[in-house]
């Protein structure tokens, strides 16, 4: 279906990433946000609070991040598309409710505008050090979807994608921005509403007396019961059977947890978005995501100007991790993967795992606070071929 024109600010704008993210959420149909504003993500909800009265919807500033991250889930079950926005310290506090959204299969979006950590860290400066927290931050076994925009334009585009994936797979989806992308202002083109594809909620077509809230078809994703129309259902964070009732048997646990994992892993090739260049002849592949991919591009250009066969693999989808891409490249003779990131080597370890020892993996670490110098990445590319 197409986007509702009321939320779409069609035109060419000069926007920062935070504002573009807000416009993406509105274009995606978000009509509810609950937040506990925190630098450097504040501008997203500041704009949402200003815009939503004219579009029709609700913003609530909550008492803390725990409240923000569960209130939005109430709004989703009430029929809204909803999201919250935070940064590292708030993301930590939201983790309990991320797990709740996973377990109850509540389609929703969490935006994390990453800043330097741990703890209060660097409130106004960029980092990409919450990548593993996004993957493993809540307890229990689960899979997650996370997207990494590199520009204000992508903050708009990928926020829409995040809402669509959330609906399709009934899972929380993370938009993993960073302070640099969030506070950077560039041209953002917002297309007409008719050109923005929106994934609607997958409401059940089963009659109320036939409906089982957690029964699924082959895609392992259950349909949603519409609220206040005769469907009785139970939403719980306890392990539950297909009827939605708590069931404490190892069999139910195994069935449920594997399904929550498999509904995403089985679709990894469909979910994976990448930007690729010169991978066919590449001896060394630079793997990057988010803001770092722009600096990496400069390093790749410098390397190729020196005659080095350097390729680009930018992860737009960071989670689920696209192992298949790395397996293929490693067995295709790529000698090394160079992985610059604004942390001390979080995704580099995933690359190492996926490459299975067939290619060298060279992390280019940076604790955050600004971005790499292209020359740092270039040196690692050169070192890869020694």
């Amino acid at each position, binding site marked *: 279906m197409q986007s509702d024109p009321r939320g779409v600010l069609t035109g060419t704008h000069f926007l920062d990433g935070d504002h573009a993210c807000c416009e993406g959420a509105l274009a995606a149909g978000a009509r509810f946000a609950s937040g506990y504003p925190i630098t450097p993500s504040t501008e997203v909800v500041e704009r949402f609070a200003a815009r939503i009265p004219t579009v029709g919807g609700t913003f609530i500033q909550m008492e803390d991040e725990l409240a923000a991250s569960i209130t939005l889930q109430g709004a989703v079950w009430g029929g809204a598309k909803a999201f919250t926005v935070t940064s590292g310290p708030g993301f930590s506090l939201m983790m309990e409710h991320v797990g709740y959204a996973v377990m109850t299969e509540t389609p929703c979006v969490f935006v994390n505008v990453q800043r330097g950590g741990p703890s209060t860290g660097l409130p106004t400066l960029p980092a990409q050090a919450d990548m593993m927290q996004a993957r493993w931050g809540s307890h229990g076994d689960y899979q997650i979807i996370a997207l990494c925009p590199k520009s204000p334009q992508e903050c708009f585009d990928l926020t829409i994608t995040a809402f669509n994936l959330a609906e399709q797979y009934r899972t929380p989806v993370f938009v993993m921005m960073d302070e640099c992308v969030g506070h950077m202002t560039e041209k953002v083109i917002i297309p007409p509403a008719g050109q923005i594809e929106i994934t609607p909620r997958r409401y059940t077509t089963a009659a109320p007396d036939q409906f089982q809230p957690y029964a699924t078809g082959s895609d392992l994703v259950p349909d949603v019961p519409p609220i206040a129309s005769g469907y009785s259902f139970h939403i719980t964070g306890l392990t539950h059977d297909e009827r939605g009732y708590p069931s404490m048997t190892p069999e139910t646990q195994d069935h449920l947890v594997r399904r929550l994992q498999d509904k995403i892993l089985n679709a990894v090739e469909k979910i994976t978005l990448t930007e690729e260049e010169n991978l066919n002849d590449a001896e060394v592949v630079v793997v990057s995501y988010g803001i770092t991919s722009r600096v990496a*591009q400069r390093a790749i250009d410098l390397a190729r100007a020196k005659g080095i066969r350097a390729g680009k693999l930018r992860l737009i989808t960071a989670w689920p991790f696209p192992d298949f891409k790395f397996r293929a490249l490693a067995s295709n003779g790529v000698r090394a993967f160079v992985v610059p990131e604004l942390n001390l080597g979080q995704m580099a370890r995933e690359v190492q795992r996926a490459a299975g020892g067939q290619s060298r993996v060279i992390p280019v670490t940076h604790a955050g606070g600004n971005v790499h110098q292209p020359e740092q990445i270039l040196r690692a590319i050169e070192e890869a071929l020694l």
Partner: protein
Amino acid sequence: MLLTEIRIAGFGGQGVILAASVIGKAKSIFEGGFATMTQSFGPEARGGACSAQVILSDNPILYPYVTRPDVLITMSQEAFTRFSPELKPGGILIVEHDLVRITTLSGDVRVYSVPATRLAEELGRKMVLNIVMTGFFGAVTQLADEDSLRKAVADSVPAAFRELNRKAFDNGYKYGINLLERLADSPNGEADELISLLEV
């Protein structure tokens, strides 16, 4: 056009960020080029020093931060002291005439001075000094088209203040063109101008 790095710096409240935004908008939206604007944020920076950076190019911009500005616009003494050493050799320094005293400077820099605050006060609103400065910047650097800057100004201010800001832009632009003509007529041109500014 090669990549051009611009830094605008002054006090919070002078409209530093809006000025940078107008320049970026002119280039990226009204001229179809590319612009990336970033701001210096610090937890302690509110109400004090304020700086915005904008990079202009005909190609997509990869590295987002300004390292050695080609153009530095300073609207406070603190901004001049802090940022003038990073100006690129051969670069352009623009100063607010009454707020910045040029103390030291390497020889290889072109300097243009404008009493932007006074010109804004003549229009009855001191707050438009940033748009006066934007007009002056357009005239002396020619880095963005006059017309696209004008459109970007109109696009960036509330409708009720469009006329005021249009005048502010025009007065700054005219002041810049007149200055360039005066410098062209004088025998030692920019060298004399720099000496006169140093003596202030």
